[in-house]
């Protein structure tokens, strides 16, 4: 690449220069090429001689009726101005002086040359993918995802308590199915009516159904409810001497007026 960069044929003699304006990257580049042709250190170049060379070069091209870009003509005008300032005696206090302008041009040429050299050094470095190579077959990093679980003690206990509780309450529901319904109680009482010619404590009929302590309450409650229904229908009679005292019942249809020994008096 640097070969190409350095390569644009740089003619040694003026004749070939005349036909090669297109080969230059602008007037500064042309000036730099002319300066290099002087084969002297650019820091010590004679700006006056360089200006004269440039002007002569442009003149030649125009003599040949070749088209010259405006850039080059502007530079030619500036160089003609510089030349006159360098040749004519300085007027007092005039700014900038010819020397200053010449120094500025020399600086710009040196700076451009420095950048050219830098570009060449850059281009000639060992470049990745051209001169030096990275690993041809890099080994990819495999991302292994693994889960890290988190839970709080509260989550744990809440899950446990809730599950156990649901299960426990589920069992109670099953027991409720053993509850005596009013219908069950009425069936039982209806079957027994014939044996209740005399006042009989209701407990006597119910006790066979008191299989568990829990059953006692439900059997008693349903039987009482059913018995009230039978009273209303006129099939049995009920009596109780005082609150919480035993409840007596008898078949109203077959009732015999024989008072039981401890039977309470009619209320």
């Amino acid at each position, binding site marked *: 690449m640097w070969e190409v960069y350095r390569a644009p044929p740089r003619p040694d003699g003026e004749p070939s220069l005349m036909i090669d304006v297109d080969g230059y990257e602008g007037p500064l580049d042309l000036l730099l090429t002319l300066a290099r042709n002087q084969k002297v250190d650019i820091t010590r170049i004679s700006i006056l001689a360089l200006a004269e060379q440039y002007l002569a070069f442009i003149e030649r091209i125009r003599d040949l009726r070749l088209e010259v870009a405006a850039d080059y003509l502007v530079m030619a005008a500036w160089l003609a101005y510089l030349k006159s300032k360098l040749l004519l005696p300085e007027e007092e206090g005039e700014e900038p002086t010819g020397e200053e302008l010449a120094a500025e041009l020399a600086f710009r040429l040196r700076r451009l040359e420095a950048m050219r050299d830098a570009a060449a050094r850059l281009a000639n470095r060992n470049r990745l993918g051209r001169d030096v*190579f*990275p*690993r*041809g*077959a890099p*080994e*990819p*990093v*495999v*991302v*292994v*995802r*693994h*889960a*890290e*679980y*988190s*839970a*709080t*003690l509260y*989550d*744990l*206990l*809440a*899950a*446990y*308590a*809730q*599950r*156990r*509780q*649901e*299960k*426990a*309450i*589920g*069992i*109670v529901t099953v027991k409720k199915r053993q509850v005596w319904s009013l219908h069950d109680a009425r069936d039982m009482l209806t079957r027994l009516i014939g044996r209740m010619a005399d006042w009989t404590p209701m407990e006597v009929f119910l006790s066979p159904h008191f299989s568990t302590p829990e059953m006692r309450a439900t059997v008693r409650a349903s039987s009482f409810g059913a018995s009230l229904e039978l009273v209303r229908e006129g099939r049995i009679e009920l009596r109780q001497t005082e609150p919480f005292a035993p409840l007596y019942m008898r078949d109203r249809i077959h009732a015999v007026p024989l008072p039981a020994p401890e039977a309470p008096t009619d209320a």
Partner: protein
Amino acid sequence: MPSSNAAVVIAVDNDANSRAETPDDHRQTQRMLEALLFAAAEPLSAADLAGRLPEGTDIIGHLKELQEAYAGHGVNLVQVAGKWLFRTAGDLSFLLSRQAVEQKRLSRAALETLAIIAYHQPVTRAEIEEIRGVVTSKGTLDMLLETNWIRMRGRRKTPGRPVTYGTTEAFLAHFGLDSVGDLPGVEELKGAGLLDSRVPPGFSVPEPRASEELAPDEDPLDPNDPELFPQPE
């Protein structure tokens, strides 16, 4: 000494393949092989390499030497299907896998199962299912085993010899417990509002002991049990 030099040249010409390789040549060949193999996008055969190196180079000999030179290194020169390539040393392959940790919450089923194991340990899968009232998937137990919060403790001395599960030190550490005996009882659960008064009077939770020792009805696990510890094929 023109004459003796000429003699040497003749000798070299006659016997190019066995030509004495100077140490510099040797070193340079090693370097070239290194560079070619490093930069190659695909494994290279000895023939591929021979085409890039001076004629008469003992490619295989050089490759073996390079292989030896890299033997203890982080990258090794290996031969796969007759071709050569540099590859990360087998024991360092872990460096090429990045562990991406994904924070996940335990599923409801997993939480319940874990809690039941914690309270009821040692407990079998059938017992867990009985307590939960639903079938517990194998995946749930596997996942919990993977968290290292539960472990297989032993086998219950009952027909079928089911595996018993218990919690681990990691479980205690994660949940900030000194021992499973610190898990709250019924009254504490009620006090925390986790159990309500609807629970029947007989309701209780076990008071687990986390002893490393097996329970009287537990047998130790057989470390060679293929059912529990699948052997690599």
